């Protein structure tokens, strides 16, 4: 946001806010400990709106549920914004002092009246109005989101649409008022911060900025590429075109985690050379030419990770890695040596010192301080800096220091995978409390809560399709089909279905999902596929019943 890729608030700020908007996030199950903080805020009297197509366990805690159509988030945000403007509830002083582009924004959202918003989103105009007024009038307000916002073809627009609301009301840069994107994975924040993005060096520094690049070239003693690289979906496009022929995968299982699994398999199998470095022999590793067994970074090696509140924390070695598994740094150094560069035997601490030298955010974060203070939140440029629990406080300086925060004009764009007569149901995906991503890690323990993959249907659709709980049905999208047992969830509205990605060995949900990608973030639209659900109990007349049964239970 405004040049800093991180949430603006510390978790504990939500305990003292007045209004909580949980948008596209089932934090009760996906970020349970953050939800503890959220509930403290609720206990202290905060009002809570939950925006989610599904009536999830998080929604159950909200004062108001806004069950919008999948992929109508921009329309909803714009309708909220328009109502705030129309009702004269903007924070005019803040807008004038700290932002830019308000007039363009105002003009752009003008068509998003409450009525039009209701039509586009399915959310009642009264509820939109309620949220708009409550958000604008609250002394402090937090908007939190997760993959419900970002796993869309227009993910970045969704985020901009929400940021616009915070600028409209001044709910940014103050304790208790802010924007909280909850990261889906342990070190997504840290990965980006450390430069594992195609366009950034460590510390959010642009690779195409010649001055910055020069600094890194001095540090590394060699010239660096002048152009940004490819993000994940661009890499797959490059594989498709034959521009990318060799891939080195570290700690990722794209064979099962990518949308449109059939395409992913074809492209990975078609590479000239595939290297996988992982703690497991994943499905991706199974087709690799070289597999480098790695130590588990969180408990078999030293280092740091960065959380959703920009807090850098130490991970430590508690176990010796098994067999031939080696520390990631050690593997990389050995590889460098084979490629002709001797880095010696760098330690995590030494690598961290390099980060501190090069990043404007991490300079004050010595290991000693990180350990003594339970981590530090960036930016923390110097040894005497206390870290930054709240970001963008500068917007409240008078006059504002640094650049103004820009409104970004964005417009509603429905999901790419259109609903038609052949594919009349919306399939959305997400996580359950006890499982994680493709289940590679969570499959390791026995959870009493785990019941395998199921296609969740609304009671109305189940009745219409004459499907009963436990019945195995076929789910078909434009890209393929899978079979799964039915679960009926009264929290789903008619027309909406739900699956997870946790059990790809049993049900490969990503056969169904679409790899429509936001070109800016590289994230696929896992949240919105068009499907139909078919009964498979009626065996074709020519086929013996036994065969079909055998296939179903394979």
């Amino acid at each position, binding site marked *: 946001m405004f040049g800093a890729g991180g949430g603006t608030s510390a978790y504990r700020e939500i305990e003292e806010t007045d209004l909580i908007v949980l948008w596209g996030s089932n934090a009760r199950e996906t970020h349970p400990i953050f939800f503890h903080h959220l509930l403290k805020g609720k206990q202290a009297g905060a009002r809570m709106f939950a925006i989610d197509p599904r009536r999830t366990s998080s929604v159950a805690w909200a004062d108001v549920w806004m069950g919008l159509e999948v992929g109508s988030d921009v329309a909803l945000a714009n309708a909220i914004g328009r109502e705030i403007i129309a009702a004269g509830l903007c924070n005019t002083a803040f807008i004038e002092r700290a932002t830019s582009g308000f007039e363009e924004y105002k003009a752009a959202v003008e068509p998003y009246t409450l009525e039009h918003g209701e039509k586009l989103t399915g959310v009642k105009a009264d509820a939109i109005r309620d949220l708009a007024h409550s958000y604008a009038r609250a002394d402090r307000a937090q908007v939190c989101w997760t993959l419900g916002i970002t796993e869309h073809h227009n993910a970045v627009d969704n985020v901009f649409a929400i940021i616009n609301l915070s600028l409209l009301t001044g709910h940014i840069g103050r304790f208790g008022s802010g924007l909280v994107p909850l990261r*889906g994975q342990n070190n997504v924040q840290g990965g980006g911060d450390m430069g594992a993005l195609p366009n950034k060096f460590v510390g959010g520094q642009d690779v195409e900025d010649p001055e910055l690049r020069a600094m890194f070239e001095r540090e590394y003693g060699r010239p660096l590429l002048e152009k940004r690289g490819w993000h994940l979906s661009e890499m797959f496009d490059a594989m498709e075109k034959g521009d990318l022929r060799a891939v080195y995968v570290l700690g990722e299982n794209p064979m099962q985690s990518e949308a449109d699994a059939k395409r992913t398999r074809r492209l990975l199998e078609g590479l000239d050379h595939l290297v996988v470095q992982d703690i497991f022999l994943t499905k991706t590793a199974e087709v690799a030419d070289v597999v480098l067994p790695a130590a588990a970074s969180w*408990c078999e090696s030293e280092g740091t990770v960065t959380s959703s509140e920009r807090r850098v924390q130490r991970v430590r070695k508690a176990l010796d890695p098994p067999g031939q598994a080696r520390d990631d740094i050690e593997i990389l150094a050995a590889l460098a040596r084979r490629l002709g560069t001797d880095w010696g035997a760098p330690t995590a601490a030494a690598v961290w010192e390099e980060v501190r030298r090069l990043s404007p955010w991490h300079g004050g974060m010595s290991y000693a301080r990180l350990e003594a203070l339970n981590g530090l939140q960036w930016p923390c440029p110097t040894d005497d800096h206390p870290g930054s629990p709240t970001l963008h406080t500068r917007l409240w300086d008078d006059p504002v220091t640094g650049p103004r925060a820009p409104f970004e004009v964005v417009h509603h764009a429905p999901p790419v995978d259109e609903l038609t007569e052949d594919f009349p149901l919306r399939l959305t995906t997400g996580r359950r409390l006890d499982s994680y991503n493709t289940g590679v890690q969570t499959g390791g323990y026995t959870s009493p809560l785990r019941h395998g993959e199921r296609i969740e249907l609304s009671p109305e659709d189940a009745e219409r399709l004459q499907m009963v709980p436990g019945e195995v049905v076929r789910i078909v999208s434009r890209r393929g089909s899978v079979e799964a047992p039915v679960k009926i969830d009264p929290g789903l509205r008619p027309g909406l279905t739900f699956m997870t990605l946790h059990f790809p060995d049993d049900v490969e949900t990503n056969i169904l999902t679409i790899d429509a990608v936001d070109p800016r973030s590289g994230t696929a639209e896992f949240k919105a596929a068009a499907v139909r659900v078919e009964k498979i109990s009626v065996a074709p007349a020519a086929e013996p019943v036994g065969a079909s049964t055998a296939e179903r239970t394979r």
Partner: protein
Amino acid sequence: MDAVPMSFVRYVDLTIDGKSVRVPEGTTLLQACQSAGIETPTLCYAENLTPVNVCRVCVVEVEGARTLVPSCSRPAEPGMVVHTDSERVRHSRRLVFELLGSSVDLSTADPKYLADMARYEAVPERFDTGDATGHGAKATVQQPVKIDNELYVRDYSKCVLCYKCVEACGTDAQNTFAIAVAGRGFHATIATEFETPLPDSACVYCGNCIGVCPTGALMFKSEHDMREAGTWDESKQAVTDTICPYCGVGCTVQLHVQDNSIVRVTSPHDHDVTEGHLCIKGRFGFQFVQNR
């Protein structure tokens, strides 16, 4: 930002064991004792939970009060004269330990409680009768261990009814409310509805109840099994702080490792992200690194 100070801190002067003590307003007597370097035994108190003051082991004598007062929850007031080592205080603390020791299996309790028992010269055996039957026989909370899932066991023979697990499952942390105190009096227990097994209950296996249990009544099944097999050995265990590998919240987990295996997971109570609490993945989801 406004130039108004965040808050005014007012101070309270009181006397504890003859010493003048000054503490910020709102400080509990327990905290005031701590600040004066006076050790106070506690059992149902935990810094990450709301004080319920049910165990009564932290009671102190306040001059002018008819009964002893629980220091964990009583705020210090100006002019209070407090005694923490009077005959009445020592008697109550000793008797509370004796009563617990006479009815509950404390064999796996945190050693600090056993040290406190010794400090107050508690002799729970005073209540033993030798006679196991008849209406004068000594009642205990002895009962079979509840093992109904693969993650943790509940041995209410070891339960001192400190309410901590109920608080951690409830509004102090998890807000799942899978357990509550049921029944009444000596036969009050921690229970799910109708004592239904955990897999049928609301339990989400965050294990935050285990994290606050002072006596080992709630225990990782792995620890329970190792103790049964005689292989549990805390002297061979090291504890390492690291960060949970799952979602992006970044919870600090403490891995208790014996023989290069994780045998238990906790989180520090004083950490402002977790406040000692985890979810099912952080608490139990470590197994994958050991399945390689």
